[in-house]
């Protein structure tokens, strides 16, 4: 067990139904883990369980060979989370939202303007998040990932609502993050173009 992130025989039930049983994987810096499966197959549950948002029935997740539940803060410090619900306050502008977020996690000290320009949302920065389209809000969620210095990106359906250009932007950002030695766990049911090596978990 030398990998940075290891999962050992994870089992999760939702109600009576077993979503996955004895699931194990290992992930090292520079690697991408792709969770695939049709709707309702438990992708989101699995990624939420890894992030610690759902209690697992059994099994253990290790970060640096230490169980995550004993060092939740250390693990959370290494992780940034992108879910269906983007997690921004609709009444605040995206800059105000991101300023607030930077107090919640380790800052990458990248210039905010550069990040917003890169994501093509710089001209929207004074508007309240309420008035942005769903796709634009996803781009703001990407800005959150770029602003944090976390190693592990956890993305649940990152390309939802994004246009073609946005989808390829996500993949570029992911591959850059991996090249920096970062790690990515991604749940996706759409066919996404990935031209780098991945670990895949297929959920039934």
């Amino acid at each position, binding site marked *: 067990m030398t990998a940075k992130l290891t999962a050992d025989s994870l089992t999760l039930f939702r109600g009576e139904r077993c979503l996955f049983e004895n699931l194990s994987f290992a992930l090292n810096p520079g690697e991408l883990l792709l969770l695939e499966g049709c709707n309702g197959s438990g992708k989101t549950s699995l990624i939420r369980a890894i992030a610690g948002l759902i209690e697992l029935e059994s099994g253990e997740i290790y970060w640096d060979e230490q169980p995550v539940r004993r060092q939740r803060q250390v693990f959370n410090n290494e992780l940034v989370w992108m879910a269906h619900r983007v997690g921004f306050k609709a009444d605040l502008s995206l800059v105000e939202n991101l300023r607030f977020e930077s107090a919640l*996690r380790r*800052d990458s000290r990248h210039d905010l303007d550069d990040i917003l320009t890169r994501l093509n949302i710089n001209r929207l920065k004074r508007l309240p998040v309420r008035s942005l389209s769903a796709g634009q809000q996803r781009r703001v969620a990407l800005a959150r990932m770029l602003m944090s*210095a976390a190693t592990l990106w956890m993305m649940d359906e990152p390309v939802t609502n994004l246009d073609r250009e946005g989808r390829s932007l996500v993949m570029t950002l992911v591959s850059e993050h991996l090249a920096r030695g970062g790690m990515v766990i991604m749940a996706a049911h759409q066919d996404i173009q990935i031209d780098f090596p991945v670990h895949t978990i297929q959920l039934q």
Partner: protein
Amino acid sequence: MTDNQPEMPGLGRGMMAVAKRDLFLAWKRPGDVLNPLFFFAMVATLFPLAVGPSAEQLEFSGPGVLWVAALLAMLLSLNSLFVSDFEDGSLEQMLVSPVPLAALSLGKTIAHWLTSGLPLVIVAPILGMTFRMPASVMGVLMLTLLLGTISLSLLGSIGAALTVGLHRGTALLSLLILPLAMPLLIFGARTVSLAAAGDVVAGGLYFLAAYAVLIVSLAPFAIAAALRISNE
């Protein structure tokens, strides 16, 4: 913990950021904040009109009515405490933050108290006048409400955190926290009555202060645990 561990965001910084954000949001939507205050003012001004102008009766019922109105106004404001965070996903972002959830919850409660508890304390003397409350009693009224609303904010946050995942958890929230809030109501109203009668009030104030200290030190952890369960 080794030395090369990357530094974590500060506890106080995270707490203040949450408090500041919630205050800013309240500033942008003052209607939500003014609702409980409006309710408090309405109950306290309508009551004297209903019971009639007898000075004796008003002086007798004043402390009780003001305290009940304050308690219900606080309950009214608690429902929405975590709902918007839950719905837009920012609660999840707080759950996966390295800043302990207890600190972030305390930040939210501080903002809640500043926007719903403190205004009640400030307008209480004005409403006390409608009950012919003498100036010396108003000080005691404000002090009991100050300590009481702090406890109610934290106590109610536990209930709000437990019921955030349920739709229409209002009734359940009241059922959950009212039994725990009863001592506050009894001691709060009674202390003000004693002050009006010219009696010693230290005992009641000490009890309210002790209750506040206990709940300030324990509630953040209970809120954090409740939020984790609710968000599963």
